[in-house]
């Protein structure tokens, strides 16, 4: 027999759980039952979410069908903002750049923390030190990190990276100063900055892998790589999937790196969707095209929502398999 347990720990009878015979609850009952208290305790959360999350979202939806500079009266323009954005040749460049960033970030940024975490799990001594070192970049404020990397990336033979590479006969490389080099350079810095957090997640997940599995595989003669392939990775698949989806969503919204490193240059080679939204909103000093900015924001949100739905569906099937 299935027994449902309420959060308070009492066992509910199946009939009660189905709601049969439940007395009608009037306002007085609701009040006596502590409804007012619940509402009062809920109120701060509702206010904060309402003001800082829901209101801007609703406002964005409204603004996406308006022409407004937030100073003069807005005018209703229907779907013109969406048409304008879709007709902008820079949009497709931005989408292409964002996908390229996401691809490179997956190619380099996704496996690096996993490999680092697995290797750190294998070391016997100084694991704490390695964890701290891996996490250190996350502690550095992102703007500081970008400015530091910008300094390292200086083009020409006198830049820090170019000087170091010059010692082994490589370079000088243009780094941020070339359309084909700029995006990989951004991904490198972003990977450095973001890997630490993911490493910690993987390390935490690795501790939950039962030691018996490793023992059993050792008994079966498995070496390091076979243990990783047959034990570690299957055990981590849930976490791996979550970090993958989070990374896809994160990279689709990449803004900080292109904004601070290159401003979208050279020649729009690093203009991403979010940077384009920013440009719509703020590039024109006489009042931005906030309608176009919110229209593109909504389109991006719709695409990310599709990803999220896929994520929920897939994780559901994974958890039951």
């Amino acid at each position: 027999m299935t027994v449902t347990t309420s959060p308070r720990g009492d066992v509910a009878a199946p009939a009660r759980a189905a709601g049969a015979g439940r007395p009608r609850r009037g306002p007085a009952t609701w009040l006596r039952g502590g409804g007012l208290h619940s509402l009062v305790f809920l109120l701060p959360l509702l206010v904060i979410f309402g003001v800082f999350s829901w209101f801007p979202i609703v406002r964005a939806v409204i603004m996406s069908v308006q022409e407004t500079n937030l100073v003069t009266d807005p005018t209703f323009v229907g779907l013109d903002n969406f048409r304008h954005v879709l007709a902008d040749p820079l949009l497709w460049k931005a989408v292409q750049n964002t996908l390229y960033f996401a691809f490179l970030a997956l190619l380099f940024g996704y496996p690096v923390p996993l490999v680092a975490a697995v290797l750190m799990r294998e070391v016997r001594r100084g694991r704490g030190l390695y964890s701290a070192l891996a996490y250190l970049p996350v502690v550095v404020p992102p703007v500081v990190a970008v400015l530091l990397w910008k300094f390292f990336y200086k083009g020409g033979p006198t830049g820090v990276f170019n000087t170091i590479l010059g010692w082994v006969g490589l370079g000088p490389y243009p780094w941020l100063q070339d359309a084909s080099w700029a995006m990989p350079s951004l991904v490198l810095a972003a990977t450095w900055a973001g890997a630490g957090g993911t490493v910690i997640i993987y390390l935490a997940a690795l501790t939950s892998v039962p030691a018996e599995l490793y023992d059993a595989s050792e008994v079966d003669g498995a070496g390091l790589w076979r243990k990783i392939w047959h034990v570690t990775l299957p055990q981590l698949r849930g976490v791996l999937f979550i970090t993958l989806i989070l990374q896809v969503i994160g990279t689709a919204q990449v803004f900080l790196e292109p904004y601070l490193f290159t401003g979208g240059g050279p020649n729009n080679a690093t203009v991403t969707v979010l940077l384009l939204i920013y440009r719509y909103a703020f590039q024109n000093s006489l009042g931005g095209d906030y309608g176009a900015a919110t229209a593109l924001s909504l389109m991006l949100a719709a695409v990310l929502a599709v990803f999220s739905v896929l994520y929920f569906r897939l994780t559901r099937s994974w958890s039951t398999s």
Partner: protein
Amino acid sequence: MKSTRKPAALALVGALTAGALAACSGGGDPQDESTNSAGQVTLSVVSLLPGSTEEAVAAFEDQVAEFEKANPDIDVQPEEYEWKATTFAAQLAGGTLPDVFEIPFTDAQGLVENGQLADMDAQFRALPYAEQFNPTILEAGTGEDGHVYAIPAKNAYPVALHYNRQLFESAGLDPDSPPTTWEQVREYAKKIADANPGVAGYATMTQNNTGGWQLTAQTVARGGRTVETDADQKATATLDNPGTQETLQFLHDLRWEDESMGGNFLLDWGSINQEFAAGQVGMFTSGSDIYTSLVQTNAVDPDTYGLAPIPLSDAPESATLTGGTLAGVPANVDEGVKDAAIKWIDFFYLNKLVDEDRAVADAETLAKNDQPVGTPVLPMFSKEQYELNQEWIADYVNVPLDQMTAFTDAMFDLPLAGEPSQKTQEVYALLDPVVQAVLTDEGADIDALLADANTQAQALLDQG
């Protein structure tokens, strides 16, 4: 216990909610409350660029103290400020601009049309020297109704060539003979770059609309125009004119044939100043007045600084592009703030140009704090008034004027041209990637890039 805890908890939650709501409602329009019932006015004003030196801040605070002493009913609240297209738009939309803010000449007309500037005509006309302004400069801040909305304040400048005398010497060049032709600029840039590995002999801005601004300046210097406006104010984009093509080819040759432009091609107004002050740039073009901010923000070594006119080609319409800064007041302030604002504009920006006592007092305060006095700019009034002013402050002039003679000897004879009047910053923004492409892609097709940018610029201009 239960009965006392519950009300206390409810009260706490209620207080927190009320606090949150109060905090949220605190972002209302502060300008409405700038004048209190006692007639005391709080006036927020632009102070210095972010990151200015302590001495610059001290000098500014001295000026504020002097103003408040003379105007006890005005409380001045200085706010650091750097005009950038992106941050200005956000501040404008958010209503967080100071009561007296600075805008470039190019933005005034658009802001007036959008109803975003207060009508300062009555306050402006009351100034004793209102009729003495150079009419061309005054026009920049005048609306179609003939009212003055933005007041010529901080400066008016021609674009000039700034050069590093130390780098000139290191390359065997005479620092007292700056280049007068673009061919010489190229030749000198190559020598500087060859003698100083890693240093850009010549650099140009490329970001945040400044790439388009400087491309336009150099186009005008070669006799080209990026936008032509007919008598009916109908604007035609002419980005593919020979002057712009020649400028881009010049940049391409310096970058790819001579390799004399260093390794950083993503520079804007602030970052090129920074590179120049750090001795990483031999020559670049920018407004003639930047020496002041090079000292205040970048601690440039005065001995290394040199200023010359931008080279002009032999083309018949070659000219020096001008620009300038106006002071504006938000449209939604009350009369009390407008009256206070004009007093500040008079005190801080203008009176020192026409009144000997104010000129001397201002120069004394700046010089006492090691701030630049005497940076050459275009006269806001007449040439005679400018020269008179220079005489008044002669004892306090501390900028290396003898290193700027190439410019100061020629500044009144320069053929001047104003910036394009329509969609100026948006067209500049379109040109940024063009300049970047030429500097980062050896095979960049200049004609194709310009044709594409021209189509987009015309679409913008057609929007009206």
